[in-house]
């Protein structure tokens, strides 16, 4: 019986483990206890602290911190930055995955490595590079000043830095998924007379929708929460160039702790929503990947 079960389920279920391949109950309990203690100390207590500190001074202080004009403009700017960065990187992710997964060409692995670059360095460097190019002493600085265009220490700089740090998120999910799926279905569509765009819309995108959504969720969470890169290019002008994470920093540095944690609690809620959405999508995405794997090995 156990043998037939393990034939169908690739990961070995706990139930089929015999006494020889598991640990005595007291070892199991100690290990579970240690792991839970570590996670409690490093995950759950810090998360609970955010909400505790936010509500410590009462609900009035909490709500006032959220509806204050500077907080509202920070929310608006965060939504603008994510609203531009996520679609931009989504289009790029689909284009890059189409080129890389559906065609064989020279320099492909170099291209894949280059796409991962923005996540390899420090986010601070992401901010620095745009200051070097668009800042007053930068390459384009004099020209921009002459034409009265502001990029650094203004909204465009924040959007650019956000795009940079979230650059690979969608591409990174789509490339391996589309590579595993192969291009048989697309070739069939083309042979049957569909145009390239029809094939993309009707065949490719429906096949990768969960992977795409997964990438978008991760991309959005990072875009709304980014701090280091945005901090360099923002200039911290209240009500103008402050995103939510930067607003948290300003309030905290002014010792307005309750307000800082109130704003932080919105971001923490966003993180919880992200985790829930991610867990839900992961379930479908797992099936999509599994199907692709079986197809490519068949």
């Amino acid at each position, binding site marked *: 019986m156990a043998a037939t079960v393990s034939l169908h389920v690739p990961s070995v279920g706990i139930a089929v483990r015999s006494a020889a391949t598991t640990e005595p109950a007291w070892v199991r309990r100690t290990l579970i206890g240690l792991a839970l203690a570590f996670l409690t100390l490093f995950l759950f207590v810090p998360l609970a602290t955010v909400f505790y500190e936010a509500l410590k001074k009462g609900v009035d202080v909490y709500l006032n911190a959220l509806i204050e004009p500077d907080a509202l403009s920070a929310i608006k700017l965060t939504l603008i930055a994510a609203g531009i960065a996520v679609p931009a990187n989504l289009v790029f992710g689909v284009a890059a995955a189409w080129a890389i997964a559906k065609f064989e060409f020279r320099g492909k692995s170099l291209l894949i490595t280059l796409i991962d670059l923005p996540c390899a360095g420090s986010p601070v460097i992401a901010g620095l590079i745009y200051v070097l*190019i668009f800042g007053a002493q930068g390459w384009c600085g004099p020209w921009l000043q002459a034409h009265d265009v502001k990029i650094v220490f203004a909204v465009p700089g924040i959007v650019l830095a956000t795009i940079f740090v979230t650059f690979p998120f969608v591409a990174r999910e789509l490339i391996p998924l589309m590579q595993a799926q192969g291009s048989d279905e697309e070739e069939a569509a083309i042979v049957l007379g569909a145009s390239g765009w029809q094939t993309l819309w009707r065949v490719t995108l429906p096949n990768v929708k969960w992977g795409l959504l997964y990438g978008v969720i991760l991309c959005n969470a990072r875009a709304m929460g980014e701090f280091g890169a945005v901090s360099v290019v923002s200039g911290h002008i209240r009500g103008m160039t402050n995103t939510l994470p930067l607003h948290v920093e300003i309030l905290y540095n002014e010792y307005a702790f309750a307000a800082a944690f109130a704003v932080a609690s919105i971001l923490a809620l966003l993180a919880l929503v992200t985790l829930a959405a991610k867990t839900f999508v992961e379930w479908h995405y797992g099936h999509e990947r599994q199907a692709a794997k079986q197809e490519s090995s068949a």
Partner: protein
Amino acid sequence: MSSTRTLLLSRHSVLPGFGLALGYTLLYLSLIVLIPLSATFVKAATLGWESFWQIVTAPRVVASLRLTFGASLVAATLNAVFGLLVAWVLARYEFCGKKLIDAFVDLPFALPTAVAGIALTALYAGNGLIGSLLEPQGIKVAFTPIGITVALTFIGLPFVVRTVQPVLEDLEAELEEAAACLGANRLQTFGRVVLPAVAPALLTGFALAFARAVGEYGSVVFIAGNMPMVSEIAPLLIITKLEQYDYAGATAIAVVMLIIAFVLLLAINVLQWWAGRRNAEDN
């Protein structure tokens, strides 16, 4: 279009859109990433070798780099040990609330770093929940290098768990049964059978956590105290130099960090290739 196709494609394909997709990919990659990144190297090159060397060997810079890499190494090691433990518990045992805990492991990916930073500072400061327990024992965490390590451990937590967990789940029970039949006890089986099988994944997770910790800024600045020579990390020093309009100095440190990041990225790719080959051999 057709000329780029024949020039670049090493295998013919009936699918359209190669020129458009690759062209857009390269254009976007160049505009957002490659040209801006090259700006740092061009700027550093204008410095000349001697002044570059002078900047990056200044005592304050060396101290910040040593702190950044030292704290990251300790944090990544802590994550390797506890990450393996968490991955093992999640992959092997059943307990109440396991699904929820599994989902929460990714919290450091989802929680903005500034939020993590102020939460950890509030906890570990002298009047905080944990700080008030530790400070009477003479252990100061917030505003010291220990605090930096705590923050870096938090943000690196998911990497080891997420790389090791799938390998542990896929590990065939037959291997461990064979070890048991041959007379190994559980500890020997773990050391000689399980650990070598998860070693590439464990190392990859360690390298990912380390690379993330080296560049981290948001969660650290609040808890660090940011004293030059003592608790000032390299990314913060870049920002400090930028705020003083010392663009050359900031760029020099950035270049050092970028080169190290490239090396780490390369090492991670090699490790993943090694792990992938291991898995392919097993199947």
